[in-house]
């Protein structure tokens, strides 16, 4: 037989076979993912919109935010803490010695942008959903608030960040440039202003903890406040004060346990919960059904023998608390709510301090946000259910006071500072403060805010906006309080743009100092 005929037969046969089999093989090869819904089939109803919105909150619980590294990056660098973790990723934060590929800068950046990605998904899709208009507006308000909150974290931590307001549609959108800080602030204000207008004043039941108009207003005020627009900021804070929704808790310590969460002093908090979800620690990656919703702050900050003691109060803050006694000549109640130290009757996790560390120990540890008084024996299961209060009413009062004093109205400022002091049962010095100059008032607030908000992630932001890091005299004071400031160089008040983004995105510029 001729070879050519053979060849022809072969190819003919192959082609015929191919043709016959193609049509049925296409159906055979259509396999839907049996695990998950596609993006195209989601965003159809109000339930989808609610779930999408809930997901935008969930990024707050990531390791890069309030599970652990959010607090670590905010607190460890300030003068009220000494971070001495043997794990360099934590230990170097307070020494301003982070490598550009450090874990904290990378996962915190990722966590904020994950929250933004999720918020953008809702905003991109919700308008097309046929659902109750009021609910739709509320959800848009919630995710706008969250997007503003995530950007506020990014701009205070990194300063020069990309501004992403829609879901990337193709690879062309994956490589954004950095926006100017003004543009980011302007977007934050726009998002919070929108949220302020559509969010309800409060929630009940299973919605407790969602963003309220009060939360949007307080953060809108804070956005102006950080830009030193004292009048605009003051106006927003005043709205919160006048809303009548909020008040100070009588017991300062109630703000830091899992007992009185979402209380009247709480304007916005991250909801942690030992019972919701599974028990697997949610370190990152694609979320799993087994993930828990707990924080690892308590084990990280936890006292020796009961936690990892990666972050201890500085001796300075302990002394600062002891400058002034209460009207009853007792220590400031905020001291013992905030710090574990050697005093008669000091117990933690059911054990007396002196049993744990010896009668003459001078070790000090944080008590704020610890489970030391909750019946826990230690923090070693990693899982803390204590909500992280991001915005307390007392902060609004203090920020309002600062707005007033900066505008030359120290009398009003003094009233609000004393309001916060009263809860701590400190002597009434309103008249004295009313006579303070702007400079004196700044010194006063530097002291008062340190006591009221120690280990709450505000202190370093305060030092930055007060310009302490750029003032050699002040920087020297900080170095005496916390030797970690010896590693500070100009520019390092901000974190590095994560090396991973620098390496993958040619449109980014690294922050000065790195």
């Amino acid at each position: 037989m001729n070879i050519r005929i053979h060849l022809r037969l072969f190819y003919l046969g192959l082609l015929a076979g191919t043709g016959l089999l193609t049509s049925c093989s296409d159906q055979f090869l259509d396999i839907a993912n049996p695990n998950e819904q596609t993006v195209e089939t989601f965003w159809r109803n109000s339930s989808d919109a609610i779930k999408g919105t809930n997901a935008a909150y969930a990024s707050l619980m990531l390791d890069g935010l309030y599970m652990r590294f959010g607090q670590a990056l905010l607190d460890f660098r300030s003068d009220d803490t000494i971070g001495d973790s043997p794990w360099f990723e934590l230990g170097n934060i307070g020494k301003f010695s982070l490598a550009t590929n450090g874990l904290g800068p990378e996962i915190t950046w990722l966590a904020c942008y994950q929250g933004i990605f999720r918020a953008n998904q809702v905003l991109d899709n919700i308008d097309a959903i046929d659902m109750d208009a009021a609910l739709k507006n509320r959800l848009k308000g919630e995710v706008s608030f969250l997007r503003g909150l995530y950007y506020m974290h990014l701009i205070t931590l990194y300063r020069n960040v990309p501004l992403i307001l829609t879901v990337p549609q193709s690879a062309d959108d994956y490589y954004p440039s950095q926006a100017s800080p003004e543009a980011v602030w302007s977007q934050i204000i726009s998002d919070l202003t929108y949220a302020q207008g559509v969010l309800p004043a409060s929630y009940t039941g299973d919605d407790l903890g969602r963003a309220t108009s009060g939360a949007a207003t307080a953060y809108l005020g804070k956005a102006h406040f950080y830009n030193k627009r004292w009048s605009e900021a003051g106006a927003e804070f005043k709205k919160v004060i006048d809303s009548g929704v909020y008040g100070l808790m009588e017991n300062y310590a109630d703000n830091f346990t899992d007992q009185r969460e979402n209380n009247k002093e709480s304007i916005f908090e991250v909801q942690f919960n030992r019972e919701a979800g599974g028990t697997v620690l949610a370190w990152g990656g694609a979320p799993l059904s087994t993930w828990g919703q707990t924080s690892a702050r308590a084990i990280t900050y936890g006292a020796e023998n009961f936690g990892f003691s990666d972050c201890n109060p500085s001796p300075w803050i302990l002394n600062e608390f002891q400058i002034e006694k209460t009207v009853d000549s007792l220590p400031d109640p905020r001291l013992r709510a905030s710090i574990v130290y050697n005093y008669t009757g000091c117990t933690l996790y059911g054990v007396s301090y002196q049993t744990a560390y010896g009668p003459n120990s001078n070790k000090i540890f944080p008590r704020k946000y610890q489970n030391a008084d909750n019946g826990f024996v230690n923090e070693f299961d990693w899982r803390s259910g204590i909500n992280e209060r991001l915005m307390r009413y007392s902060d609004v009062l203090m920020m309002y006071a600062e707005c007033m004093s900066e505008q030359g109205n120290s009398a009003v400022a003094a009233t609000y500072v004393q309001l916060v002091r009263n809860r701590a049962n400190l002597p009434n010095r309103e008249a004295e403060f009313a006579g303070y100059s702007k400079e004196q008032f700044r010194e006063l607030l530097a002291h008062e805010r340190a006591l009221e908000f120690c280990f709450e992630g505000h202190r370093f932001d305060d030092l930055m906006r007060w310009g302490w890091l750029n003032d050699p005299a002040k920087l020297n004071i900080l170095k005496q309080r916390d030797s970690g400031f010896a590693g500070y160089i100009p520019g390092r008040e901000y974190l590095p743009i994560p090396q991973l983004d620098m390496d993958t995105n040619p449109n980014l510029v690294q922050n000065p100092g790195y």
Partner: protein
Amino acid sequence: MIRFFQKWLLTLSFLLTAVAAQAQFTVTGKVLDSETGEPLVGAGIVEVGTSNGAFCGNEGAFKLVLSRADAIVIVSMVGYEKQEVPVNGVSPLTIELKLKVGSLEEVVVIGYGTQRKEDLTGSVGVVNVSEVKKLANNSVLKALQGQVAGVQIHGSGEPGAEPQVKIRGIGTFGNNTPLYIVDGVPVVGLGDFNAQDIETMQVLKDASAAAIYGSRAANGVIIITTKHGTSGATVINYDGYIGAQTVPRKIAVTNREQYQLITNAAQINAGQALVSGNDPNSPDFINNVDTDWQNEGFKTGMIMAHNVSISGGKENLKSFLSLNYLNQDGTLSGPAPSFERVTIRANSEYKKGRLTVGESIYFMYTDRLNATALHVGNSIVDLIKAIPTMPVYDPNRLGGYGGADNQIQKAITLNVIGMNNLLTSRTNRNRFFADTYAELALLKGLSYRLNLAYNREDFSTIYTRPRYDLGWFFQNEIAAMDESRGYGYTALMENLLKYDNKFGKHQLNVVAGYTVQIDKIRDINGHAEGYTEPYFWVLNAGSTGKSISGYETEWRQVSQLGRINYDFDNRYLLTMTVRRDGSSKFAPASRHGVFPSVAAAWKVHNESFFHVPFINQLKIRGGYGVLGNQEIPTYGYSAFINSNSNYNFGGAFAAGSSQYAYANPLLRWEQSTTSSAGLDLSMWNNRLSFSAEYYYNKSKDLLVGVPIPRSNGTFDNPIVNAASMRNQGLEFTAGIRDGESDFTYDINVNLSTLNNKVLSLGDYGEPIFGNMSRTSVGSEVGALFGYVSDGLFQSQEEIDGHAFQSALTAPGDIKFRDINGRGDDGQLLLGQPDGLITAEDRMYLGSAIPKFYYGFNFNGGYKGFDLTIFMQGQSGNLIVNGVRQTLSRLDFDNHAVDMLNFWSPTNTNTDVPRPIVGDPNLNGRESIRWMENGSYLRIQNAQLGYSFPLAALTPLHLTKLRVYLSGQNLYTFTGYSGFDPDISNDGLFSRATDYGSWPNPRTYLAGIQLSF
């Protein structure tokens, strides 16, 4: 292999002459080539019915003492037809042997068919299976190391773990594992198969050889056929060995006193108060504990294997049965890791008229105790860096094992021995693999074959953690367990039409087929907590924290394939192949791929003009073809909603859903175009053989999860067709086989080179970073990248005069070189130092890919003794010694002893930086400091065996009895300072990094092989 055995038998026979003591007639003579009249050196002569034998020496001469004068002798020679010669009392004799038609009769399995080795047009590496079987390993793949040119094995010494296998380097950024075909069926997990069951093993290296497997062949194909029954007498074989395994090398770390010296210096330099356990002035000071963790943590492991097989049959029914048991203990103190495997294989083949029907059934059970890890750890690194002031045992701690204390030692240090004894992770797998086939002869030369195969695996992993206290960082208050179970299967149907015929000088062989494959995996994972003693490790006994999860994955493939092999006059060979694949992994529009190839060969030695008497074979071949790759996760072309993005409000669970990762709807087939040209040469009656080959592979549309900026809000990288790359190299194989009378030997060497280059990358050519590596356009994959260190700062003046590194830089810190600058717009200014040490100062530091790989195998036989020496190595690559980096952190972990020479104002002539907790100058950063020469040459195996003479065996009803002693991984010539330069890791972007991979054990074996 066959030739080896022929000689082997002759050697054996010759031995026996000494035993058979009734010499009655001495015959001498010559053996010559019937055509050329050349003497055949090495031809063998055996007296029929006895074991008397001899070899021809110089000039083909022999001398043999026969039992009687009318004996019959069999004369044989590799490549020649065997001849029986009645002696009839005549001496000297001249015997002429005829060259076999096609002297290289070896048949090679090429996928959907077989081919004579001499007719191959593509690159096919044939594995010497008998050499592979000499090595004791849990995975047959590990034994392939150094055996075939162009096959690179990077191995894990961990029991039950599979080594990494690459053929001709990295062809893709995804899974580089070749396709494994066992008895015609694609399988995963080749390590499951019992090495003793293997009959042949071949590696298809280029497109023309592999194209018949189309879409899945881009990484090369390893084809294995297993032993089948043969007609004839029933034969029972037993093979067994037992051996001891040890870790060949220790890493020198500091003892208690030295550890405290360095750690104290590091704390003082950081301005910290000494940790009390290291402070001689503290009551907590530790001076009574000095644990040598490597001494305590490594043990001698045992490896043992038994294999029994029985084979037999008649013309129309053949069958085979084998049973294999393997047991390997690890070298780590405690129960894990260990591996136990039982396999049973049965096959048979029936013939009736035009119909042949057969089946192969395989069952495997494995029991593996996995190495456990706590937090982000690795048992090997954790063991080495464990501090000497931590005791192994401590009855005061829950669980009874020692640990470190936050206040006293502060180190985050793990008692690996305690962990290994307290935590258990056990994986059991049951694998059932059945393959049935029927072949019907239709017309002359035309046949139809149907294959139906089903491979199912059921697996479970149970991971239990009791309550324990292994120190301040490693304590577990809540006993917990995880149990995962699942199954996976591959179902395959193949319809093949084969046509094989000869028309005069034209030989034609055609295959056409249609195949359908379905793969599915489904699993369920349960978690429970709150177990109390006594522990009952079932989910039901957990009291709290119960959760479950589960997933399913499925993919399908439909293919049409065809191949023509054409041979004109045994001189010109042509192979054409085409395969069309449709895969469910791609979007409908880009689901199908067509992969053609063509190859040709010219057998120069069969040309009438070719008259070089000492050359048996000279073949020139070349090929070109396209292969596909789809080794990516399923469903990658759609974006999905993750429904576990949950939160809580008002104390109640609130379900959350969100898109987690990005998708690429344009996903399409990755294509690899390969070209190769080669030459095969055999000389002096095949005593000398040589092959050389050049290949050039170019892959495009590489499927890769290109890292995208984290500003996109996800940790996962979308898989895109976003790179192209080329690999080129040379492969050489040479062999010598020769011998005289009672001494025979053969030597085989192979050498291959590899040169890799990335041609395009990502959407905008942005590089991909690995650990201390940067893969960029124009570079090779995983090219090393980092800072250049320039010695130590000796003074503050020197620091002030150097580029700024850190505000805390002090004398004794490492000086890094200022190479590049950063412009005002943040752009890299190449070669313009800017007075700042920044990420811009990282540069290319060397290659992670060996320039060449080589293997050397010697086999010698003398009388009943046989000796094998097998060496293997690689050269020209750097390794990032991640273990040394860890041991040089100079903080609370244990330190390498070299660190004792640290810089201090009184010890300035050193290259070891000052110790300081936290390392603010980042002395430990990615730099040339951690890179070491990764070249090595390893004596992989030395084996000495003795085969008892037949006369001694006959009374025992044995036909074969061989005993042997063997040493594996006996010695490694290397400059590398880590455990082992043969490391395992991702094999890709971070392929140079030794993260503390499991050291390959040194093994001493004693074995026995018998047949009756």
